[in-house]
């Protein structure tokens, strides 16, 4: 809390977004990096600090708003999108971000997430996916792999996991991206893209819980393996990966993707070219991952569609233009009336 400090400085820096509260995540948690990247990215957006609102649900990630020196609300489990929706539609001037986790967004709050995405409210949703329940000390989550042994599943989980990117695409989100907690530059890029997208944005951030699910994303972050295990998406560019970018994704018969090595008669022209505006490509990419495919990182999909708050507020303006500013006395007197003397 920094009461009494006016924020009229024109150029903001990272420290303007750091609140005076001690950060209380476990040492080594991936959340620290994400917090740092958000605090680094926001000053460059050219938006006054007081126009940002961070809203969260419940879980480790949801403590995020307390550490941001912006407006914020730490809500209730799974309900951040509902709270943020009411705020955004009634205050379209604000930049509203949601911070949530795999349990918060996809389990208890699944309903709010999909409806918020389909409405295309301009809410920027950051889903920290660590594939575990951390705050409740280590139960499997809706993104935990099948057979996961946890405190609540000593014989292995029997739940088929959600794929967050597929869920978002299935819910008709207009912007869907994935990044990793420790890839500072890529994550900042994705945050900027989310901010610049004129509508709702969904960013899955692969995040390590070093206490209850340590190393869940190691193969994607380890310097020695990540070139082979990740596929960095760039709009208009062929899908290539590997240490020497020697591998690529080609569509085989029946629109089935396959990993191919370049050379031996296969060149770039044979590869799938990433098109952010093509939902079919986006969905195809969302299904890729180990063991047969690299994990795509970057913007899967981006589409411009009227936002809920814009259309809802336009309806109000249109009603005012047509009927004039409402006269409450006239409203009370509507319909059949009579006078008693």
């Amino acid at each position, binding site marked *: *809390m*920094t*009461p*009494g400090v*006016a924020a*009229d400085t024109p150029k903001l820096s990272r420290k303007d977004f750091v*609140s005076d*509260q001690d950060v209380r995540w476990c040492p080594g948690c991936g959340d620290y990096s994400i917090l740092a990247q958000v605090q680094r990215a926001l000053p460059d957006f050219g938006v*006054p*600090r*007081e*126009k940002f*609102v*961070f809203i969260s649900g*419940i879980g480790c990630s949801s403590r995020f*708003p*307390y550490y*941001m020196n*912006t*407006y*914020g*609300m*730490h*809500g*209730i489990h799974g*309900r951040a999108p*509902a*709270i*943020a*929706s*009411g*705020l*955004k*539609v*009634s*205050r379209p*001037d*604000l930049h509203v971000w949601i911070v949530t986790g795999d349990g918060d967004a996809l389990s208890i709050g699944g*309903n*709010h997430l999909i*409806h918020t995405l389909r409405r295309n409210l301009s809410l920027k949703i950051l889903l920290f996916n660590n594939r575990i329940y951390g705050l409740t000390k280590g139960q499997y989550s809706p993104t935990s792999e099948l057979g996961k042994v946890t405190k609540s599943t000593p014989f292995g989980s029997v739940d088929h996991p959600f794929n967050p990117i597929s869920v978002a695409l299935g819910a008709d989100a207009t912007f869907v991206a994935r990044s990793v907690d420790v890839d500072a530059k890529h994550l900042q890029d994705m945050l900027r893209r989310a901010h610049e997208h004129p509508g709702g944005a969904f960013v899955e951030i692969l995040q390590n819980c070093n206490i209850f699910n340590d190393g869940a994303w190691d193969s994607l972050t380890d310097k020695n393996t990540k070139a082979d295990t990740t596929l960095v998406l760039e709009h208009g560019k062929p899908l290539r990966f590997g240490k020497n970018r020697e591998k690529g994704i080609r569509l085989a018969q029946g629109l089935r993707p396959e990993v191919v090595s370049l050379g031996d008669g296969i060149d770039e022209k044979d590869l799938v070219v990433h098109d952010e505006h093509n939902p079919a490509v986006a969905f195809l990419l969302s299904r890729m991952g180990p063991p047969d495919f690299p994990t795509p990182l970057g913007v899967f999909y981006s589409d411009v569609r009227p936002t809920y708050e814009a259309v*809802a507020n336009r309806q*109000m303006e*249109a009603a*005012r233009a*047509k009927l*004039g*500013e*409402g006269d*409450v*006395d006239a*409203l*009370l007197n*509507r*319909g*059949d*009336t*009579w*006078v*008693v003397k």
Partner: protein
Amino acid sequence: MAVPPDVATQAQARRAKPTQELETVTIRFAGDSGDGMQLTGTQFSNESALAGNDIATFPDFPAEIRAPAGTLAGVSGFQLNFSSRDIYTPGDNPDVLVAMNAAALRVNLGDLKPNGILLLDPEGFDEQSLKKAGYKANPIEDGSLGRYQLFVVDVTKMTLGALEDLHLSNKVAIRCKNFFALGLCSWLFSRPLDPTVKYIESRFKKDPAILEANLRALRAGWNYGETAELFAVQYEVKPARIAPGKYRNITGNSALGLGLVAAASKAKLPLFLGAYPITPASDILHEMAGYKNFGVLTFQAEDEIAGAGSALGAAFGGVLAATTSSGPGIVLKQETINLAVMTELPLVICNIQRGGPSTGLPTKTEQADLLMVLFGRNSDSPVPVIAACSPGDCFYAALEAARIAVKYMTPVFLLSDGYLANGAEPWRIPKMAELPDIPVQFRSDPQGFFPYLREGETLARPWVRPGTPGLEHRIGGIEKEDVTGNVSYSPANHELMVRARAAKVAGIAREIPPTNIRGPEVGDVLMVGWGSTFGSLSAALDELRAKGRAVAHIHLRYLNPLPADLGGILRRYKRVLVPELNTGQLLKVLRAEYVLDAVGLNKIQGQPFKVSEIVRKVEQLLEEIR
């Protein structure tokens, strides 16, 4: 006058039959769900209101949109009480029963007064209809209706006859029969037809053939009453002497929505309504969705939780926020309401109660959510509770709920119920200028700002609109440190904050006006009511006072906090009776609060009290005292 000349002139000039004046009439229209009885009742009510009568209505319909035709489950009824004096209720037992089929007769006949007027359409008494209603013989023919004034009117046949040359399909033509019945009853009770003619003209504007058919059916019904040898007299109920002013008919749901709009206007704030459709609250959402040019934003959320959540988000954004629902939806909202308690944001939660538990009786009334709204959240969670006592009062109750919410920075429960929501009464239209302003001050000065620094008297924390420079702050559901609002797990601070939240709500009692005692200040029996039983209790009181009984009535508008003078009043009577449409919820609260040996009168049938039920209970208590 838009009424076709033949009808109009009949009404005024050609009084072919003698007129008998009545003070009060209770009429019930009953038929199959598809027979249009709700519309018939509503139009008859509007005609009666325009005739200057005081009215009270009670629509009573099944939860199923179209239960199987002709069955007992599918019977829909609409009761109206109209009078030349002040009335409080839709009447205990009807003087007139209009039954369109055998099932409607079977369900409703038991309520009809002896020698009451019984109007039946024989078309609804064919073999199949009788069987569905469980009649072995046709009651029209077997003499079993001898204790009533039976009028058998071929409503369906005559409607078809009147529309013959319009070449409508049989199915469409039959649908007009409710207007025939309405026309006939309008004649019988000398009601003006204009409101119905106007209604038909506007409702069927786009379908001239149906418009013409319904007008003709209406006229045919009136003309039948006028000319047929069946009715010897025409009745008249003179205008009531009610307070001067401009009036309209209003249902509780309409009044509640208008109250929220008026509150937003008085607070100079935009209004946000987050809601999910649910009976019997949906009409509020429907009406508010049309008020866009009043700065009203309605958000039909994905579920009840998001209805409340979105409203809370809007409140954080600095708008007047409300969420509307009924019991099953309120249960789902309670977690969000507790977040509003913790974040101390203003939020009006409207609970249009219905019969429960669970899905219960969706279209029937009950006042059994009192303990839930008082205590149904985790931990010590004080929320002010206000209850409306009549359809028109929903307007003022909504204004008051909004005023308290923004003044004290707190969620506020506004209780209505199915009976108030759908019931209608004449309502004296207030002028906005007569209503007090609702002052709202957003904090904008960063100097000395702390999110949980409380105002000295109200203990309200400051309301800050996000976007205000220098006042960036975070709130949330984790316990707050006093003054700073930072997360705090300190044991002493938690107790301090729990007590501070309680003190803030308890302090509202300072503003509650002295309790209005109807009847003697000291006496034998005090009736304590709340919510929609106001009408029944008032009528019962009048009856008991007329008999010279030392009985009084108070009606609680504020259920949390309770009025400061209540404890003293309760002790001035030998017995305290708490009539409620539940198993004794306010009774439990009063007993706990005042260690009082009060007794309950409890009815849990999805129906309002009959005045006679209350009178009987009070007489019994008086007997015990003697």
